[in-house]
């Protein structure tokens, strides 16, 4: 662990944390400012199926259709600023020079044209794919079949050199163990997979990303535990889905916040990734700008905190929509409208100094709906952040502390009769508390135990983590 570790909070109190302002604002791309007293929409999209078949068709889709439509609508609706996000598809990550380079360059050219013509501030985030397979090997030189680790690093280079303003990624470290644990409701396995192994993988990949960004004078954004915590949350689902109890999902998410923090410790400056619902905790700890998604990301998924998620954001995202026609224009235009107007509401509140009122209304809408949402309300997120920084030096201990703190907060509110839980959710919560409390106080002991306990998990290979 050669990286800096957070051992104290950047904000003095929870109440200082609000959308549109970050302690360390950013300025990049074509005039875009993030976290500097203003919220901008971040629009994400997926090409239509079949357009990946040739490079030409893919470039047309991303550049002439998607990017042009977006910029047109931004001007039509009068949005002063926006960010685009391109989450790379497999083909781009698999052959970056051929598939990704012309897309990245083409999108930037369109944005420049609109920026020059109308003065609309904009930037683009490229979220490169991390296709690494645990069974093949996560580190360079290991996967001789696909060369995925090498291609992952090459992706960042190609993105950075061709026009990306922000680099991001959703990395996969520890996911093989987390996948195994999540369907068995085994919180200790999850802690090992994401809290420990995931953090180690982050500490390997993020310094490399930061270097590439620095070399190209662009922004190393941040990560998200999409691979782990979003899977939990997605499976916990809405009120009728019951794949995973929501108390489990809430605790996994808070464990993940300790892991995603490693990107920032490696030099990432934010904005972190929209789908990282651990964002509020990261912002409380680090003061870095945050991208989030909720009400305006119904195109991509529904969760129980659509308003809540806006309360600390600096970029407000739609997560992703496939390009197609709607009565109101193309899908990217419609969803840009939704998130851009939400940003306008937040910005009106900031100008009129009512931003904390609006923040509290966002929170009030969803605070007691589900444990995941409850944990990331700024007051609770701040406390969980504190639990992390108090144990800042050990990936294991700080992840465990985050999980425990989350479980305790949930239990306390439930005891007070505010946050309601189903019987199954309560049982799970009790089991989580017992399980976490039964773990050793030393990292070494925990790792020894876990390596034995999870040695037969399919695809788990300690060499991926130099263990």
């Amino acid at each position, binding site marked *: 662990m050669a990286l800096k570790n957070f051992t104290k909070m950047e904000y003095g109190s929870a109440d200082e944390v609000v959308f549109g302002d970050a302690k360390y604002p950013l300025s990049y791309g074509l005039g875009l400012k993030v976290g500097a007293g*203003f919220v901008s929409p971040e629009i994400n999209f997926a090409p239509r199926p079949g357009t990946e078949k040739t490079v030409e068709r893919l470039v047309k889709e991303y550049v002439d259709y998607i990017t042009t439509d977006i910029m047109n609508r931004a001007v039509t609706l009068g949005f002063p600023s926006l960010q685009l996000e391109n989450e790379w598809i497999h083909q781009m990550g698999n052959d970056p020079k051929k598939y990704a380079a012309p897309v990245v360059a083409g999108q930037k050219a369109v944005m420049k044209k609109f920026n020059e013509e*109308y003065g609309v501030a904009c930037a683009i985030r490229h979220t490169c794919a991390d296709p690494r397979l645990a069974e093949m090997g996560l580190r360079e030189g290991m996967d001789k079949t696909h060369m995925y680790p090498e291609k992952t690093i090459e992706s960042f280079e190609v993105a950075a050199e061709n026009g990306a303003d922000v680099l991001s990624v959703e990395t996969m470290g520890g996911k093989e163990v987390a996948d195994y644990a999540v369907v068995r409701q085994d919180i200790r396995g999850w802690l090992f997979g994401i809290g420990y192994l995931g953090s180690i993988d982050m500490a390997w990949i993020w310094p490399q990303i930061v270097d590439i960004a620095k070399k190209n004078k662009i922004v190393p954004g941040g990560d998200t535990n999409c691979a782990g915590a979003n899977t939990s949350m997605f499976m916990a689902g809405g009120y009728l889905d019951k794949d995973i109890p929501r108390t489990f999902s809430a605790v996994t998410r808070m464990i993940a916040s300790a892991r995603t923090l490693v990107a920032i410790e490696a030099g990432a400056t934010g904005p972190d990734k929209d789908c990282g619902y651990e964002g509020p905790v990261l912002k409380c700890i680090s003061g870095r700008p945050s991208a989030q998604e909720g009400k305006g990301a119904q195109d991509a998924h529904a969760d129980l905190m659509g308003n809540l998620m806006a309360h600390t954001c600096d970029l407000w995202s739609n997560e992703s929509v496939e390009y197609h026609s709607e*009565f109101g224009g193309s899908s990217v235009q419609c969803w840009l409208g939704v998130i851009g107007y939400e940003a306008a509401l937040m910005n009106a509140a900031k*100008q009129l100094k009512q931003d904390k009122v609006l923040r509290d209304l966002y929170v009030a809408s969803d605070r007691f709906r589900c444990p995941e949402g409850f944990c990331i309300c700024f007051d609770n997120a701040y406390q969980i952040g504190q639990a992390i920084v108090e144990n800042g030096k050990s990936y294991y201990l700080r992840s465990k502390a985050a999980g425990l703190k989350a479980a305790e907060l949930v239990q306390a509110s439930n005891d007070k009769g505010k946050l309601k839980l189903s019987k199954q959710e309560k049982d799970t919560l009790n089991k989580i508390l017992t399980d976490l409390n039964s773990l050793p106080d030393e990292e070494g002991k925990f790792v020894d135990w876990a390596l034995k306990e999870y040695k037969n998990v399919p695809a788990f290979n300690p060499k991926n983590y130099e263990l």
Partner: protein
Amino acid sequence: MLDFDAINADKILTRYDIKMESSEKPETIAARILPKDPALKKVAEDVMNLKGKLIEDDVKAALKSNAPEIVIQDGLLKGMDVVSELYGRGIYYLPHVMVAADAFDKGMKLAEGAMSTEKKTKGTAVMHAAEGDPHDIGKNIAAVLLKSNGYKVIDLGRDVLVDTVVDSVLKNKPNFVTGTALMTTTMSAFPRITAKLAENDVHIPFIGAGGAVNREFVESFDMGVYAVAAKDGPHLAAKIIDGWSWHRLREKWDDIIAGKI
């Protein structure tokens, strides 16, 4: 009530149109298009400046030194070209186009009267709004633009039966047909029309447009060529008159609509 006048509105949402307003110079645009000949220029300027009252005198004057075909081609139509250009750039609004078209019509009547041969339009279009569909404003606008670009328009109206459209095409032998549909549940009339045309061995382009319609749908049936906006009509029509098949129109569609070719 919060103090609304304290708001700096442009920081929340920007009025790009007003921001851009000063940078557009209509005169420079017009200068590139207007004819040199003073009499013809006068005619063109009447159209572009919406001078319905002066145009008849000015056309008469121009006819003294120019053939009627020239007055139409280099006077009236050039005026409409300027109007189209200004409209396309958002300097003119639609009402300008409508009133300019009125002036253009008056001038045309005079010039045509002075022609020795039969009136020559560039081509003919049969237009309609789909069976069951009462939305016709878009179609009406498109019709004006086609007319003022020199095409003969047979406008069948709105909520037009499939068979009425087919009969009209068989009778009038137009260069292309157009259909407008604003409801997803009326646009299915389009392929029914083209199927019947095919049975009668007619294979002209069918321009499909209207809010409900998208390119994918229009290209899902033979003959279908999509149009986004009324201003695309003249671009597509010009290619059709040049002999382009619906296959070729589809292939080069992006470039035609973008005005690149």
